[in-house]
């Protein structure tokens, strides 16, 4: 069983680490975390990916275990009721996890198209250089043309964000509409459910 030590890590890092493991085929893992937001989001990740979730109080935080089956991960004790209650309470705060950036067009603001396009390139570059990386970067409508058939500078910025743990989702309907699906250079083909879901999960959404 894979154990991830995410002590000291703020959301969304524990989530990103766990998701990477699950995406690469891992179906049994435990994550040590020290904040309730991470417990809440890891629990949600487990549910979303069809894995059972159990939460154990450990020294300095919680051990969130995800596995297939009845939720009892071998070699870990059962969930303490008090901890479950605390976790549920945390879920009710609606604090959200990280922030999402929505790119619904290939330019920033309204006005001159060329200026707006250059502002978009600069905005994505600035985001990619920042220490405060968004939890998700969401491309829709003409925004998808930035990552499918777009300029190298844009691709490099988006790739850098992905490497720092930002989830990049690209609207498949939009790729299809613009006929650029086969040109998608970075990011994951996604849909309205997931893109809206990331916005709902986030503590805030920045629209470029």
């Amino acid at each position, binding site marked *: 069983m894979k154990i991830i030590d995410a002590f000291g890590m703020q959301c969304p890092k524990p989530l990103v680490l766990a998701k990477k493991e699950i995406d690469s085929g891992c179906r049994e893992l435990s994550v040590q975390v020290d904040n309730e937001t991470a417990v809440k989001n890891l629990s949600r990740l487990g549910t979303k990916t069809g894995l059972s979730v159990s939460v154990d109080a450990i020294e300095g935080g919680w051990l969130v275990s995800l596995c297939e089956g009845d939720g009892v991960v071998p070699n870990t004790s059962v969930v303490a009721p008090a901890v479950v209650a605390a976790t549920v309470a945390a879920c009710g705060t609606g604090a959200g996890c990280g922030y999402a950036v929505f790119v619904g067009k290939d330019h920033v603001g309204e006005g001159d198209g060329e200026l707006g396009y*250059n502002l978009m390139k*600069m905005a994505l*570059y*600035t985001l990619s250089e920042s220490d405060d990386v968004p939890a998700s970067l969401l491309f829709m409508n003409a925004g998808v043309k930035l990552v499918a058939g777009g300029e190298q500078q844009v691709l*490099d910025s988006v790739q850098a964000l992905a490497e720092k743990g930002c989830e990049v989702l690209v609207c498949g309907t939009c790729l299809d509409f613009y006929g650029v699906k086969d040109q998608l250079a970075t990011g994951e083909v996604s849909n309205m459910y997931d893109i809206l879901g990331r916005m709902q999960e986030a503590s805030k959404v920045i629209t470029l």
Partner: protein
Amino acid sequence: MKKFLIAFESTHAAMAAQKALSSIGSIIIPTPRAISAGCGMSLCFEAVGSHEAIALGLSVEDARGLATLYEVQAGEYQLLQKL
């Protein structure tokens, strides 16, 4: 390769120069906070040395009289020449 930056005083000049320098893989970035002058747009590119960078900068007609060339060293910007 060394890193260089041209800070522009005009957005129109910056966008035109970007097209002229696209073949060398220049990228358009917000002018770093450390450089207060300019319109807010800069081009960043790599060159073998400062002589090459200056020659390249001077070759961009759109930049003439409207831009300043810097060398980027460990996050610091060394003024090289007004273009």
